[in-house]
């Protein structure tokens, strides 16, 4: 997988260059990286043949953790692990129940639970300020308060570092016995049981890991946008995450980041070009990808590179 490594390095450098050359894109790219981390979780579950249509709930949990705790502890280095921890805990609780289900039931139960969380965030107005959402005041990094420009760079740097870290982790995981067993759930779940392995436990581990990454992604999104709303947990946000996974391509741990970058860029440029029909453009792009490049951006890139190498 030399190609993957090469592409990852080139991609990371391109992102840094982009963020440096076009200041406002730094923000967009930070969000893209954050979402990419969350989409890694979708990718894991896709390997098991399962589609979570409610994964945005973990993003929301991560984001709201930051929003609730930041007023008392505005420290990025503490907030991130805390958000990850809470999302992981929720993932574990929900996961224990959800791993009993497959296919549409798995997808729809995720959707239902995310809608419950969405409704709670919206309904508990006294605590969450409803759809207004919560503003996150300036944060400190290792105890230092930073200026806006520096802070933006720091967030970008953290997102990129975590993206690389989680990307490597997921890559290793997918090649590990647990990762390969996870992929086995898609084709022959019963065999795992015949080998003395609990398929549910295999799936649960992946689910909890995906929740963790969702929480981290959500925390990063909230620290970047500095404002959280229940919209984060709405079902269309979950749909977006699945969209990104397919756009980027499920074939590689690089896919989610390619997908998230492409998604955010298409969205901002579509919004800039036709402010009132951006949804249609995104939908069109998605259709084209599915019909003509089901391997996503990763599929296109890797076949190009392969062609060149041969």
């Amino acid at each position, binding site marked *: 997988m030399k190609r993957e490594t090469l592409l990852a390095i080139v991609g990371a450098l391109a992102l840094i260059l982009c963020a440096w050359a076009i200041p406002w894109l730094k923000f967009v790219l930070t969000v893209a990286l954050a979402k990419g981390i969350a989409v890694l979780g979708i990718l894991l579950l*896709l390997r098991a*043949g399962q*589609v979570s*249509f409610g994964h945005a709930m973990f993003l929301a949990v991560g984001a709201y953790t930051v929003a609730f705790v930041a007023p008392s502890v505005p420290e990025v280095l503490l907030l991130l692990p805390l958000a990850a921890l809470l999302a992981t805990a929720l993932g574990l609780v929900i996961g224990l*129940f959800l791993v*009993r*289900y497959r*296919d*549409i*039931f798995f*997808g*729809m*139960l995720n*959707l*239902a*639970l995310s*809608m*419950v969380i969405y*409704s*709670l965030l*919206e*309904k508990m107005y006294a605590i969450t300020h409803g759809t207004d959402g919560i503003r996150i005041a300036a944060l400190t990094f290792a105890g230092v308060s930073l200026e806006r420009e520096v802070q933006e760079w720091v967030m970008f740097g953290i997102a990129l570092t975590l993206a690389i870290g989680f990307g490597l982790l997921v890559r290793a995981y997918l090649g590990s016995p647990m990762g390969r067993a996870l992929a086995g759930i898609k084709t022959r779940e*019963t065999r795992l049981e015949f080998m003395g392995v609990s398929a549910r436990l295999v799936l649960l581990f992946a689910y909890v890991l995906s929740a963790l990454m969702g929480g981290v992604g959500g925390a990063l999104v909230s620290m970047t946008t500095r404002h959280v709303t229940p919209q984060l947990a709405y*079902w*269309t946000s979950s*749909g977006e995450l*699945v*969209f990104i*996974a*397919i756009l980027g391509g499920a074939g590689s741990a690089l896919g989610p980041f390619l997908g998230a970058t492409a998604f955010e860029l298409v969205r901002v440029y579509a919004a800039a070009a036709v402010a*009132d*029909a951006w*949804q*249609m453009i*995104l*939908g*069109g792009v*998605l*259709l084209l990808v*599915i*019909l003509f490049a*089901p391997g996503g951006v990763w599929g296109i890139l890797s076949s190009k590179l392969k062609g060149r190498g041969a």
Partner: protein
Amino acid sequence: MMEWFSDNGLLLGLALLDGLSYAALVFMVAVGLNLVFGVLRIVNVAHGSLFAIGAYTAASIGIFFASLGLPAWAGYIALVLSALLVGAVLGPLIERLLLRRIYGHEDVLQLLVTFALFMILEDVQKLIWGVQPIMQDAPMKFLGTVDIPFGEDVIPFTAYQLFVLPGVAVATLAALAWFLRRTLTGRVIVAVTTDKEAATAMGIDAAKIMLLTFSFGAGLAALGGALASPTTSLVPGVGASTIVLSFAVVATAGLGQIEGAALTSLMIGLGRSIAVYFAPEFEVVVPYIIMVAVLLVRPQGLFGVLETRRV
């Protein structure tokens, strides 16, 4: 407990009436989605858009009829026309041009194709019908109201809500049950739902059945929208909120089960209206709580058949 009932019994009765009509609307949307899922094995996210388009079309035709000076009952023709139009034009178009290309692909791709379609149709609606609320309530007004006694008071209900909505839903359920069990085409649809491979092996033209079912489902979605249109204002985004609820119904009902869809809709309708009276904070989460509770007890859905393990 008894005391609570004597205090709130009358209110509970009112909640029942409201719940019924709401359940009818939920059922009309969900049953089409469930039917389509049963045969095509695709969760059609764009079903909500078809609902919205059906509603808008019905309102447009109704307004057009009114401008021609046709009497108020012509509004009902508009409702049916809209469902027929969507079912006969949009349904086949979507199935032939899009869905057919992705049968047999991974579930997630099939799901996303309809998600993409949903995104596109959301903007299309806006381009056609604009953003200002559209209302065409002639069919509701035509039938007037019925006074329901409430202690010494009376509560007016619209006859449309009390009779037309539940009536159409029950008729649809009965007609569907008859169609699926008593007609050849219906039985073929059931056969494909139960075991597509076996059905194809028996020489059933699956492609034709899928086209038929999808168009039929689209028509049902549109009919649901058309029926809802006299009672509500049509605004952008009405499809998105409708579809989530239908998802919950389909999963709770059991895949492809129309009776399951009816029972689930009833539970959701009643649960919601009771919540509005006694615990308004829970109104929004009621459908999901019902869904989770049902699936905890019956993992395959209310009427679902456990798929046998192929060993």
